[in-house]
């Protein structure tokens, strides 16, 4: 267990951190290239600024969605805030960074009770999100198996972290939970650039690329019909 923990904290953590950083950067660059290539093919060369801004802000601050799906939006926002703030501003994590990578932000860390409560809130928000996803027919139909899995994986480090910091004192159990905590954190880092968690960096870009590449010329449909040789036929 000790070895596994050290491995998870040492080489695996460095690997996952490097993969996350560089992987997100890679996604960023790749989608930029995709966007410019889409521009090359698109008949309308103007940048759909307003559209992209509207969509992106819509996702970031879903004010409009409050009207249609109030519970979902609220829980989602809480989940996101907790998910970003708790791990980033935890003192122990700042310590981990300063020890293994060399820079840190220990000055602005959260106090322990705040962090603990925030973690609890995040866990509940995550569970509610999962339940909402399971209960709603629409979301269930567009969810793949892994979509549930990612959500669970995201919640695991919060549960184990909370257990470590507030529940257990017995060393053996503590270590077990800590190992699971660190391992799941590493896996989140590794999977982040390759799964839908990557929306953290892709959010504005994907809107941009989509807006560019899916903007058809007027009468595009008729042209396709012409090319296919099915002009005038019934659809």
């Amino acid at each position: 267990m000790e070895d596994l923990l050290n491995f998870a904290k040492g080489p695996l953590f460095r690997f996952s951190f490097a993969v996350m950083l560089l992987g997100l950067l890679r996604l960023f660059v790749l989608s930029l290239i995709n966007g410019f290539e889409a521009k090359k093919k698109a008949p309308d060369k103007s940048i759909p600024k307003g559209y992209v801004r509207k969509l992106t802000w819509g996702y970031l601050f879903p004010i409009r969605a409050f009207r249609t799906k109030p519970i979902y939006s609220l829980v989602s926002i809480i989940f996101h805030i907790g998910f970003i703030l708790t791990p980033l501003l935890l003192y122990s994590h700042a310590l981990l960074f300063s020890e293994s990578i060399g820079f840190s932000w220990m000055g602005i860390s959260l106090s322990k009770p705040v962090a603990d409560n925030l973690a609890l809130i995040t866990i509940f928000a995550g569970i509610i999100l999962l339940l909402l996803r399971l209960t709603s027919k629409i979301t269930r139909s567009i969810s793949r198996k892994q979509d549930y899995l990612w959500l669970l994986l995201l919640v695991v480090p919060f549960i184990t972290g909370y257990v470590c910091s507030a529940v257990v004192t017995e060393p053996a159990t503590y270590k077990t939970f800590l190992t699971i905590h660190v391992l799941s954190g590493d896996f989140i880092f590794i999977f982040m650039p390759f799964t839908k968690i990557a929306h953290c960096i892709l959010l504005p870009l994907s809107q941009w690329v989509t807006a560019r590449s899916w903007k058809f010329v007027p009468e595009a449909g008729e042209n396709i019909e012409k090319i296919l040789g099915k002009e005038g036929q019934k659809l």
Partner: protein
Amino acid sequence: MERINKFKLVLWIILGIALAAGITRFIFGLGATTNLSDTTPWGFWIGFDVMGGVALAAGGFVIAAFNYIFGRKEFHSISRAAILTAFLGYVAVVIGLLFDLGLPWNIWHMIIFWNPHSPLFEVGWCVMLYLTVLFLEFMPVVLERFPNLHLLSKIHKVLTKIRIPLVVLGIMLSTLHQSSLGSLFLTMPYRLHPLWWSPILPVIFFVSAICLGLMMVIVENMTSSYLYKREFEENILGKLSRIAVYLLLFYLVLRFGDIIIRGAGIFLFQASWGTYLFWLELALTVFIPLIIFIIPKLRKQPNFLYLGALSGVFGIVLNRLNVGGLTHLTNLTKSGSFYFPSWLELSISAGVVSLAMLAFFYFIENYSVWDEKPKDIDSEPLTVPKFNTNYVYLGPTKTANRVKFSFAFVIAFGLAFALISGKHIYSKGFDKTPVYKARGGDTLLIDGNRNGYGVMFPHKFHGDSIKIACGKCHHLNKPKDKNTQCFECHNDMYLTGDAFRHDWHTSAQGANLNCFECHKHNVNKGEEFRGNMAAITKLCLKCHNDLFPADVKVKILKTYVTLSYTDAMHKLCINCHKERLAADSLLRKSKPGLALCSNCHPKPAQYSAEHKLFTKQNVNKWVVVPPRLK
């Protein structure tokens, strides 16, 4: 996947590893990441990246000379690729050099601070100028893609007009720095093996660079043709190989003539590492290529032609490595430690080479470097999208490649970054495990098992509120702690003032001894250390059995360890002071502070900070003489 794509994938992986290694090199410095040392200050990066790289790029000026000066127009079809190789080769040289230099951000100093007598100065200038010339020579290939842009086409016109002067200038500059790389080693006849050191080293370097240039063009052409599945220019390469025959023969005569005239012939048939390297080098450089190039039956088979040229390339690169470090005195004799590059050095070199190769492929694919462009890999997708849930369609080949290569790059970087352990690479000396010094701070990080992750410990609280004596934790814990180096407590053990030199005995270049080869293991428990040295420390005589001549009568003293100078000095003065103070009651009244430390060390804090031995008494009157044994 096509050949070229597989190859590019490998290059991207190497590049990822090299990026991780390169970052480490710049953060932790040269000592931690390379195997360079005071005995071998130049290593693989100079031997291969710089000297090998410059030699490998010689094809540019050789082919340019044949094509433009000697009027051999048949070489025109390969001249662009040769110039491109040379240009990228020089860029790679400069990038490699940036890793090797201790202060790479000062590389521009060569432009303003001049020392014209230094060969390195001349090499630096020539490489800078030649890089510019090569850039101008290659520019038309890039510019001709934009015939509509007015300014660019104008530049293109100018460049094509001044092409001949540029080529001549390129040849002049190449002559200079190819040979000056040899002049670098003229000043160190004491370092190089006599089979390599020669007053005509510059000439040897120049001639071998031309040979290498010809053979490198063959290798480069055949390799890229193989990768892109195109017909290579068999006629031209055959002609090149015939020219190479004469040059190689000339090189052979030059090399042996030089060795025999200098009188170094006696080293040709020794059973030594240097001689083996020499014959290996010559076999690769001259004998194998000559046999293949002379016999027409072999020469006409592409495989053999390739083998011959490749062997020549390896041979001359080996020559550069030999001159650059392999055959130096420090490597061949016991007077220095054997140098072999660390994997970080090798991976950075490999990364620089793959970067140059990737750039080469980029230019080949996007500009008309060859007479015919390789077919656009974007035009016909190799895999048609199938709407199958288990199959991920990454797009047409170009897009798919982009995705795959960058993925491989990221994973390779991550793996290499994980393997290069930041903490342990930091120092190869004795302070491998840093201890967080307490110094009475409020809150400390205690790193109990020294894995780099500390635990908060309220230090002041333990001392002030719970009233635990310092010694309870500190002095008792240390000896049991196996990870703490001895000098953490015995901080005087490496001082130069001691008669016994701990550093010589423990360092890798010295006796390379473990502590417990001289000290008994119970030292670890701190038992009876003071006053009973003989019981736990081995006598010097046990190892140095030739310390005393055989005919001498030896009386072993009870305390055979010499005092450190600090201790000796203290005993000389303060013991006497103490005795007088104890004996003389009058003195006790008139000078009560006679035996205080502050008499000699008025400011102890300043003393420890500035390493000043005495602030009051500047003149050191006392000298402790180690007993002469005769």
